[in-house]
């Protein structure tokens, strides 16, 4: 009576437990991702950057009292790269560029992690409410999202940060306000899609409550695109954040790449290229690396875009 006993046997022999199945699936996904060389490059850079950010207090002497403030060495102002004690040179106010680059990574990691986690939570909650409730609630929430999306990202963030006044916290706030909308959109469309799946009907048929269906069936099956977007945003946020800092919306003297570029840009015409170049390069690397990883993730989770590689 058992259909195709041979295949059944094969299924049973090859795998043993749910845990192993899960591990196997994880390994398969990782392998698919690592098969793409650009993803590997991106991943390597990401790992290096994060390592650098995490080990900042050990590779450089932290500035006292606030390690996130640039140390000022007034005895060595505007020295070029290669000078003793200042491998990457100093800015026109005696700030060590290497210190800025390393602690800037830490600042960027802090910034992007905080903004991404906050925006994901806000976006997932609002998107879920909209998608799950539907009707008028959905309509109102999505029109609000449309309003937010209609204003260009950078200009919107700039406006909010400018209104709040120059500070690093305000940059975080401004970015959160700008970036949550995408998650709400993604989450809503995912939920509406999953809601129409037959297994949601099947879950209702066995008597599950709405909340339980949401937590067990809808949420786990709609989360991957959010994860991909979050990875891409890890890069974008640092890019926009650095722009805001460059314009001067961050506290002066903070070890942040945008601030460093802004501090050094006046010296470019005088040939002091190093102060803006190195931090600028870091912003570039950071944004590039996370975008490469994000694209790799998208290829793995959404096979439809795979051919576009």
């Amino acid at each position, binding site marked *: *009576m*058992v*259909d*195709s*006993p041979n*295949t*059944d*046997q094969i*299924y*049973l022999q090859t*795998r*043993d*437990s*749910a845990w192993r*199945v899960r591990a196997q699936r994880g390994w398969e996904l990782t392998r698919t991702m690592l098969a793409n060389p650009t993803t590997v490059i991106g991943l390597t850079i990401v790992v290096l950057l994060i390592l650098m950010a995490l080990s900042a207090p050990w590779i450089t002497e932290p500035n006292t009292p606030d390690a996130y403030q640039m140390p000022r060495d007034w005895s060595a102002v505007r020295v070029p790269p290669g000078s003793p004690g200042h491998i990457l040179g100093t800015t026109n106010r005696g700030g060590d560029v290497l210190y800025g680059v390393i602690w800037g990574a830490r600042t960027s990691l802090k910034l992007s992690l905080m903004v991404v986690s906050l925006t994901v939570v806000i976006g997932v909650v609002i998107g879920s409410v909209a998608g799950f409730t539907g009707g008028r609630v959905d309509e109102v929430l999505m029109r609000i999202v449309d309003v937010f999306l209609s204003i260009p990202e950078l200009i919107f963030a700039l406006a909010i940060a400018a209104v709040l006044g120059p500070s690093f916290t305000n940059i975080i706030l401004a970015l959160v306000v700008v970036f949550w909308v995408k998650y709400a959109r993604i989450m809503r469309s995912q939920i509406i899609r999953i809601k129409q*799946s*037959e*297994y949601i*009907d*099947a*879950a*209702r*048929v*066995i*008597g*599950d*409550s709405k909340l*339980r269906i949401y937590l*067990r*069936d809808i949420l*786990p*099956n709609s989360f991957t695109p959010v994860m991909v977007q979050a990875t891409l945003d890890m890069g974008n946020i640092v890019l926009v954040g650095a722009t805001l800092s460059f314009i001067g919306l961050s506290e002066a003297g903070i070890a942040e790449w945008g601030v460093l570029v802004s501090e050094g840009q006046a010296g470019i015409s005088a040939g002091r290229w190093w102060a803006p170049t190195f931090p600028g390069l870091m912003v570039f690397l950071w944004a590039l690396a996370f975008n490469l990883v994000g694209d790799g993730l998208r290829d793995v989770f959404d096979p439809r875009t795979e051919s576009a590689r």
Partner: protein
Amino acid sequence: MMSEGAEKNPSKSPAPVVASVADLQVHFQSKRGIVHAVDGVSFDIHDGETLGLVGETGCGKSVTARSFLRLVPKPPGIDAGGSILFRPRTTCDACEGRGCESCHQTGRVSAGCSACSGKGCSECVQSGEETLDLMQVSNSRMRSLRGDRIAMIFQDPGKALNPALTIGSQIAEVFYQHRSAEVLDAANVDVSGIDPGSLLLKRQAAQQSRTIERTLLKIPPLRSRRNQITAAVDDMVADALAETQIANPRKIMQRYPHELSGGMRQRVMIAQALACNPDLLIADEPTTALDVTVQARILELIHELQQRRQTAVLYISHDLSLVRRICDRVAVMYAGRIVEISDADQIFQDPRHPYTRGLLAALPSATQSRGKLAAIEGTVPELVDPTPSCRFSGRCPNEVETCARFDPHLQSVGDEHSVACFIYHEPPEGSGGRPTLAARSS
């Protein structure tokens, strides 16, 4: 209002009625008007029988079936009227489930009416049995019926299982939802005491625990009892799976749906649907997505489990030859109406309605030589704001003027056989003649 003939069930049939659909109307709001997807459908389902609901795509058979579980999305769906009366059943007191005279050897009797304790009142239509109108009951009551008293098997088992959960946890869900007392019992957990742990375990068995409670349950003395619950549920799941003759249920439980073949997935769906021994099983084309060899086995399995448990089955299909093989009675639907309902044998040997005749004639047979396939001419009518007329008019070979102006109702033409056609009963006054079976010469 529609079909007096179908409602009166012959006294010959010993099995009690499990569900009774009366003048069910489900409409859909669309841009072009109101679509009458189900327009006055009436039929009864008796305990332990298989009723086939046959019709072409879009005739309203799935909507009818889904109405039993209130799965029709609203909006755009509109409950336009009618009722679905459902009589949940319990174990027979006299024989404790072994089967005796008073319960027709099924071991189960209708649950007593809670309002009049079996004496008969207006609430239970004087039957003394608990009768629920599935269109009216509260949402929480509906949830307690779903999966417990009424279950459903879906068309495509690949789509009806959550890809992110193991098979075991998906079947366990039914037990957690509807059998928490049995789960605790099987785990030998005494929850009658005032022990604070027992409350936690009770909530755990009903899958209601919150994060803090789940954390509490990880503390050693409670953990062992929690593990007992898990083990008990695992046993129940394995038993449910074993009943579907799946090989190695313990291992299948740990699989994910994508790792199983289509036939195995459908077995899992059946195990899940029959886990709580429902009174009514709705099978919405359960074998359409499977290939023919597996199809036969799945049908055998459903039939066998149904026989053993005396579950009534509402079997929805467009496959006539299949329906003939497995159904006791057959209702033929066309454009939101039932046009003919009868015993399966009778309907295949002596089809009355021109549509049923057309359907049967369109069945290609193995003995016939190759040639042009027979088909019913024309297309299904628009169901948007229909005028009073026979729905089959325009395609019917026996049509006369009357058919386009009056609406035939389902009326008895003999033993448990009802047809909605003017050929078999008198059209109303002032009509333009009566159709006959003699086919138009064309």
